[in-house]
């Protein structure tokens, strides 16, 4: 007990304790740096375990010495509150600081300071210990556009610009379109999008050369698959959700069966089905492109998840809303479209965003049918005999890419949630 009392500061001696304590913390951090980067160990003479944990013990004593409520020093107060409120937390804090010290310098060294990005061949990377970003640079076009011919990459770019452009047309002309805005986004826009993709990227008419879907790939394919997934699975999911809440038994049971079936099977088996089983179900002379089959499978699959999310919103609406709409003499569809759905959808923005995020993250699975988007292209590049041994760089690049896309989407959904939040 005496020992602990010695380590406990009080207001009288706090200045001295502060100096000694922060000194000890500094020493412990310094010791870890010396040990790991300069191979100098001052406490070699101590027995093994004590030697290993010495920085932690010194640091803990240091934190113990500066732990005082209302010390009068604002910075110290803040530290005590946030990272040093008891011995356990102080230990965890020290561990995290040590781990960061051990991990960050070598990692940043590998990723940035010793990395190469110059040159166009593997030879540029042989000399360095660090990451070989040249590999990413050389393969960048492949990662973005897949095996799509280099000369036609402008077609993909223009198509995407058009797609974004048409999406904004509706947004900026809200005032003029007014009553048709839902019609525009629900029906007209998907058709326009399909036509753009069909004529620009696929080609075959207007003097543009035909590029088969097997050559599509990379990030652009991720976008195409998730884009069509998004715009089609939403209306389908809405209908299914309404069907599940319907009072008509046949419609309700069919919807329940559909939703539970698709939610019970993994996407990979659905894609298998679309590639090996689905052709058996079509007339033998009918041919449906592989990409379209895959997108259709993804839409059918994700619609079940969207339906469940929307059902949550429908259930959360108070009964009064239905009764009020009915008492105004609205029919079923009028009630759903003008009263129920607008409120229900507002409630489920986060859930829908999560489903869409899952959809984007699921797109790499299309590798099972032989289509390769970013991850698929990585696998292809990795096995290229000229570029063996750079798998790590590729995976880090793709992770950052996907992370950025998904993180941006989740942030946007949080913003939407705040924007459409209405008080009840």
């Amino acid at each position: 007990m005496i020992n602990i009392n010695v380590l406990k500061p009080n207001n009288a001696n706090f200045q001295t304790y502060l100096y000694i304590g922060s000194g000890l913390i500094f020493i412990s951090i310094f010791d870890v740096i010396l040990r790991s980067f300069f191979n100098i160990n001052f406490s070699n003479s101590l027995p093994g375990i004590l030697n290993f944990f010495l920085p932690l013990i010194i640091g803990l004593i240091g934190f113990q010495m500066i732990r005082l409520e209302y010390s009068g020093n604002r910075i110290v107060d803040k530290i005590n509150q946030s990272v040093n409120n008891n011995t356990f937390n102080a230990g965890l804090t020290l561990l995290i600081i040590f781990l960061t010290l051990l991990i960050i310098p070598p990692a940043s060294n590998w990723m940035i300071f010793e990395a190469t990005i110059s040159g166009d061949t593997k030879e540029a990377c042989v000399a360095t210990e660090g990451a070989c970003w040249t590999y990413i640079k050389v393969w960048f076009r492949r990662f973005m556009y897949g095996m799509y011919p280099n000369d036609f990459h402008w077609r993909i770019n223009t198509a995407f610009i058009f797609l974004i452009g048409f999406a904004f047309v509706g947004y900026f002309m809200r005032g003029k379109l007014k009553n048709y805005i839902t019609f525009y986004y629900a029906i007209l826009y998907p058709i326009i999008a399909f036509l753009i993709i069909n004529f620009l990227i696929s080609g075959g008419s207007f003097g543009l050369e035909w590029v088969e879907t097997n050559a599509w790939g990379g990030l652009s394919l991720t976008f195409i698959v998730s884009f069509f997934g998004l715009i089609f699975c939403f209306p389908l999911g809405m209908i299914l959700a309404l069907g599940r809440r319907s009072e008509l038994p046949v419609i309700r049971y069919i919807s329940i069966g559909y939703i539970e079936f698709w939610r019970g099977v993994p996407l990979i088996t659905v894609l298998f089905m679309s590639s090996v089983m689905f052709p058996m179900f079509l007339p033998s002379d009918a041919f449906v492109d592989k990409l379209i089959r895959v997108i259709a499978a993804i839409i059918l699959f994700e619609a079940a998840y969207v339906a469940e999310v929307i059902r949550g919103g429908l259930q959360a609406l108070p009964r009064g809303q239905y009764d009020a709409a009915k008492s105004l003499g609205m029919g079923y569809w009028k009630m759903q479209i003008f009263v129920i759905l607008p409120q229900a959808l507002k409630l489920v923005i986060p859930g829908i965003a999560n489903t869409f995020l899952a959809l984007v993250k699921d797109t790499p699975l299309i590798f099972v049918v032989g289509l390769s988007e970013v991850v698929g292209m990585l696998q292809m590049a990795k096995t290229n005999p000229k570029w063996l041994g750079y798998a790590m760089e590729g995976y880090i690049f793709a992770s950052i890419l996907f992370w950025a896309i998904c993180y941006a989407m989740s942030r946007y959904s949080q913003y939407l949630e705040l924007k459409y939040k209405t008080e009840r």
Partner: protein
Amino acid sequence: MNHKIKNIIPQLLTLLFVVSVIGFFTINAQLNMDERGIDFGYGFLNQESSFDVQFSLIEYDGSHSYAKAYLVGLLNTILVSVLGIIFCTIIGVIIGIARLSPNYLIRNTAAWYVEFFRNVPLLLQIFFWYYAALRALPLPENTEPIFGVTYLTVKGYYIPRLIWENFDILIYSILAAIISIMFIRNYARKLQEEKGQQLPVLMISAGLLLIFPAITFVTGMVQLEVALPVLKQLSKTSFIYAEGLSVPPELLALVLALSLYTATFVAECVRAGVQGVSKGQKEAAASVGLTPNQILKLVIMPQALRIIIPPTTNQYLNLTKNSSLAAAIAYPDLVLVFAGTALMQTGRAIEIVSITMLTYLTLSLAISLLMNWYNKKIAIKEK
């Protein structure tokens, strides 16, 4: 009358639509199969499979039937799922609690972990562990032991194999321990309701679980031998560890990726559950004089679990379904063995894909039925 017709027409139309879609598909399938001379049927399951599977929990080789191959795949899937569920729960609970820590650094590290791992596609993570991280491990002959007896090498993780004698007696003893624990719990509850006394149930249960199997060891009914992995030279340059149990790198990568990925979702469920218990409950419990441990055990946890368990089960289901990504790194799970190799050999797309889907469907429906039952059991019974 009018109202009835109004109700029947949409139902009839939907039914007609569904029936005609299914009918269209069936007729086409029939025509296609006739054309290629295949008959529909599950008889092929008894045929000899004539392919080998690299990693199997039960005895299997090419001379066994397709049905046995299916079982091998199913067991491998279940193995990955169970391991993944165990690890993702451990990591998830730790991260979820860390996200509520008063410590700024801990809280934010946990938040970064969640933000990063759940925003990167699972397939990418599996590839990362399998092709990049685990490939960087040393060869068997250069490996330093971990914990003295296990070896983590590029060819897999070698751990000691446990050789049991009379393993069934051990199982019986554990069962006996569990049954007696149930009796003691009932007795403890009665005691508390009648006299307000509390027994240290947790300590007693742990003690019983240790003592019963220990008795079987001491009396010599059960014996345990440990076979340590030993380095063995196969050829001039190729070494492996024999004797011990080898965990293939595919399984390692899969379990790592699945548990790290799913742990982020479990962590969010845990956090939501603990935050969902209102502050008043804690304060009320403190004001009636419960100790902090009692508050956690008797007031916070029962309420938090009610919020945590349903979404967490959903995540377990997702993990089980996601384990089908094993096919991408050639871990022989249900999808790879059955919907992959067996389908290639027999060409029976409809039968095999439907069996595979039905298997997953049964698994999910079984788990969700179980969960619904459990949910009903623990739901607050309001008066």
